């Protein structure tokens, strides 16, 4: 049984079919890429999985339990957390406080103060923000805030993290640092990632498998190599 199992999910907004019967399986420990042009339905799919938006049809199973119908906070406590394309830091709190909230509320069981401090330190270290822990989140650069998004998801103790365009707006050096970070997290902690990315090079390097969406429908699926050679993808995506 797959770690994350999405079964025939559809989402309709008024007359617009944002997602049409999308199914996919993510295995534990893999990095799963989602591709597609703007409006292809990637972010909607994230919102459905994370519980922000109820699907019109279909269901989401994670680690053997059904997520559909649960609130985002409960889904997070079950071990699945997302980040936002447009970052949403707790701007008035310090970087460390941002992570502390995630550790306090995101984990499945109640942690002791020592455990929380440990979780916060680990998350800071993972994204290389340890030296900025006392800054207000609002004072971080965009790259810093993107890393804070990831750290906050990590601090919840999530086993599966969905990253929505964490590379967008970063310069090449920062992108390559981010690639290193994600690869290390997978290796060292056995985390599973689902990533949406516009930086195609990064997506190809990082992902084990890639699913391509177009207008809410699944049009291709395979290894990065297969996707690169896929006719329909080339047509839709690379023009």
């Amino acid at each position, binding site marked *: 049984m797959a770690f994350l199992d999405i079964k025939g999910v559809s989402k309709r907004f008024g007359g617009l079919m944002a997602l049409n019967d999308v199914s996919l399986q993510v295995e534990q420990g893999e990095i799963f890429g989602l591709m597609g042009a703007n409006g292809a339905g990637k972010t909607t799919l994230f919102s459905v999985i*994370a519980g*922000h938006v109820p699907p019109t049809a279909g269901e989401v199973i994670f680690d053997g339990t059904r997520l559909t119908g649960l*609130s*985002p*906070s*409960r889904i*997070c*406590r079950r071990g699945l*957390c*997302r980040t*936002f394309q447009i970052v*949403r*830091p*707790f*701007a*008035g*709190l310090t970087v460390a*406080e941002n992570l*502390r*909230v*995630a550790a*306090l*509320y*995101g*984990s499945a069981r109640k942690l002791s103060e020592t455990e929380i401090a440990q979780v916060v330190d680990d998350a800071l270290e993972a994204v290389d923000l340890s030296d900025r822990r006392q800054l207000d989140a609002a004072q971080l650069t965009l790259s810093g805030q993107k890393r804070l998004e990831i750290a*906050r*998801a990590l*601090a*919840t103790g999530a086993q599966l993290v969905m990253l929505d365009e964490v590379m967008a707006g970063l310069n090449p050096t920062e992108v390559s640092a981010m690639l290193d970070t994600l690869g290390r997290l997978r290796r060292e902690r056995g985390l599973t990632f689902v990533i949406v990315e516009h930086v195609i090079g990064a997506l190809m390097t990082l992902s084990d498998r890639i699913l391509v969406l177009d207008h809410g429908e699944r049009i291709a699926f395979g290894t990065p190599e297969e996707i690169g050679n896929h006719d329909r993808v080339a047509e839709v995506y690379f023009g």
Partner: protein
Amino acid sequence: MKNVSITLGLALAALGVAAPFTGSPYLMGIVFQLAMWIALAQSWSMLSATTGYLSLGHAVFYGVGAYVCVLLTGLIPFEFALIAAAAAAALFAALVGMPVLRVRGPYFVILTYGLSELVRHIVMRIESALGSFGRMLFDVPPIEVLLWWMVGLATLATLGAFVIRHSRFGAGLAAIREDEVAAETVGVPVARLKLLAFIASAAIPGAVGGLALLRTSYFEPAQAFDPVISFTIVTMALVGGTETVRGPILGALGFTLLSEFLWSSLPQLYMIVLGLTLITFILFVPRGLSGLVDSIKGAR
């Protein structure tokens, strides 16, 4: 700074406990008012300072408490009537909280105001349908007893506000204030926490309303639900500063003293000063008196 705050708090509490022994009704009256506003402003801060949901309708909890208390006085001992008043206010908050807290930003502010006015008019209607135009209370407890109760409530509210701010609960509320969607995403049960904060912030004002009623021994719905109460609470808390627990105390202290000078002789002038101070502080001193104290100390 912490020591200064604790000293201030203890000094005020001691003043409250000791005031009756002076035998001065005037002093007891002032201390009663001061304790009342501290209790109200601290309770308000449990919701509004923590989550940023600014309530402009806390008079409704005060009024509900007063109403319940007037209905129960004579039937049960006043201590129980006060507890019932607090419970009724909390229950009212629990009932309306779910829908009301879905409304955000400026809409929440005017909604709380409108809700308070709606309840005021309903109670006025009920009372006039019952043929009652104000109810007198007899055999109310002496001022000393009421004062101790009020000082107790002010202490309880201050401790409550302190505990909330420094707890897991408070961390969740702060996350809600900063970004509700992000808070929910990292596991904060937003709706439940907001509701709990709303209930916590309603209970003590209910008991305060009951006590204030026993003090005046006269109930009139237009006064018990007077929107000026809500406005005064907001002004005291914002002028005092919402970032610290001592803020509402400083605000209450300042305006209670001011009202002693102005309210009896020139109530309108007092209200004008209240409005002007509020505007000045929002524009120029957003961190309030409390922040002002910090920056003065910092500058030294």
